[in-house]
């Protein structure tokens, strides 16, 4: 024990001797733990802010000094101005909020459709070995092709409105969720299945009450990744042809050699992704209440 911490404890005691005498030592320890945790949180936040300042500051500085060409790489102040302009004056496609909302609708739509199909088909194939043996090679082949090119096909067949974007997003989400649901359904603890059967569960109950809940922790893990993919699908769909959306905004900025517009669009997408991530985490906590809370320090 260092002299300083001993002294600090001494001065604590001196400050309120009556309290120190009655208070059990254990709460002392708990209080110190909480103080340490708070201090750590503050440090992390401060370092995060510092990282942003260094990153944006060096970007701004190098472009201002002309070391980096701002025609190609823009600069933070211009990007902020651009976003502010979009907010106050609207974009060339209409009010900014409409563009953000369009992209969010496409993303959410594709995410829900893809995830539901992935869960249903994944669990079905996981439960039925004949079906999975028959369809296995096709699924693997379909998974191997770069599916974003399907966005072009959907733009032709489904038109330039929201449907083609939802389809593109859904197909990207589907495979990720499908493989997790499939694996989850396959790896159900055999004891749990045996127990449910002995207790009298029929096949339907076995699926809904044992297989799906058990697969859920696999599926949920995939939802974090797949929401990001849904956003990719929506934006790529917009790039193939659209009349609204953040992807279309980026596309038209690119057509005008407006680097600030491209970056501004990217920042908007990042903001959407962060909000969605928070929503998914909330959903996760709601769905798997039965699992012990794992507190990880390294969570991002």
């Amino acid at each position: 024990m260092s002299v300083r911490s001993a002294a600090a404890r001494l001065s604590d005691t001196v400050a309120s001797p009556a309290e120190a005498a009655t208070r059990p030592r254990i709460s002392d320890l708990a209080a110190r733990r909480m103080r340490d945790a708070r201090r750590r949180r503050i440090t992390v936040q401060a370092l995060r802010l510092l990282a942003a300042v260094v990153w944006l500051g060096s970007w701004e500085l190098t472009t201002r000094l002309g070391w980096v060409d701002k025609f190609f790489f823009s600069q933070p102040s211009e990007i902020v101005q651009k976003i502010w302009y979009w907010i106050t004056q609207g974009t060339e496609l209409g009010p900014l909020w409409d563009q953000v909302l369009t992209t969010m609708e496409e993303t959410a739509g594709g995410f829900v459709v893809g995830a539901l199909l992935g869960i249903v088909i994944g669990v079905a194939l996981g439960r039925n070995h004949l079906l999975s043996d028959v369809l296995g090679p096709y699924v693997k082949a379909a998974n191997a092709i770069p599916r974003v090119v399907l966005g072009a096909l959907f733009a032709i067949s489904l038109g330039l409105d929201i449907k083609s974007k939802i389809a593109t997003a859904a197909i990207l989400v589907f495979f990720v969720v499908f493989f997790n649901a499939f694996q989850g359904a396959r790896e159900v603890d055999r004891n749990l299945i045996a127990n449910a059967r002995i207790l009298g569960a029929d096949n339907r109950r076995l699926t809904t009450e044992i297989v799906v809940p058990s697969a859920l922790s696999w599926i949920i893990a995939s939802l974090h990744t797949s929401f990001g993919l849904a956003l990719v699908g929506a934006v790529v769909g917009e790039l193939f042809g659209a009349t609204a959306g953040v992807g279309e905004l980026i596309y038209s900025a690119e057509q005008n050699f407006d680097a600030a517009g491209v970056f501004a669009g990217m920042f908007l997408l990042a903001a959407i992704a962060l909000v969605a991530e928070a929503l998914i985490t909330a959903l996760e906590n709601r769905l798997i209440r039965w699992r012990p809370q794992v507190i990880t320090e390294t969570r991002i």
Partner: protein
Amino acid sequence: MPQAIELRGVTKQFLTPAGGVYTALRDLDMAVQPGEFCAVVGPTGCGKSTTLALISGLEPATEGEVELFGKPVAGIASGIGYVFQADAVFPWKTVLENVAAGPRYHGASNQDARLQARDWIARVGLAGFEDRYPYQLSGGMRKRVALAQSLINGPRVLLMDEPFSALDVQTRSLMENELLGLWSSTSASVVFVTHDLEEAISLSDRVFVITAAPGTIKSNYVVDLPRPRNVAEIRFQPRFVEIYEEIWKDLRDEVLVSYERQKRSGAA
């Protein structure tokens, strides 16, 4: 009156991943009377658990006949309770939902199932824990949930596969006493698989000794100790020690055979 459980000339073979055939049980005969508490002891890997799987209908016998109350077993038999060695309570269900599962699967209304479940939860001493999830319970408490989950269905045959082997010694003898208490209020026949001879004798009316694999019944012993018993103290009775020594002579040879084989396959 037919036997509660009867196995006649039962053989069980499995295909090994390498393509060979592994004989777990060979020509096994065994009969359990209604309301009888039987223990099955034998060395590791002798097919004790396989016997339970055959009785429950989880696995079909390769040869021979398995009957419950005179009726051949085909598929999962009704009127069976099964307490597994590993935790088999459903982790995503609360204690109440876990115990209520059986009646619900048998068509009881949600409300009725919950009412029955509350009663059984109280009987196994878990009142107040209805809304906990299994991860919030200790190992002993999870075993109580598993017991209530099985007994709520009113089984005529209760199969137990080393149910208490993962518990510490004190919790274990508590649970053994509670099991005897719960069992005495039912008329179920019990088949209790264990590798612990002391546990087998203190709980049961009859002890079956199974040989090293391929397993078959080597001998069976009647345990004529009076009931009700206190599991924690019964082992000090002279009669207990006599029975123990008698069965141990039989069991020791099989344990040695099994041990030698394991050593050899471990060296190979």
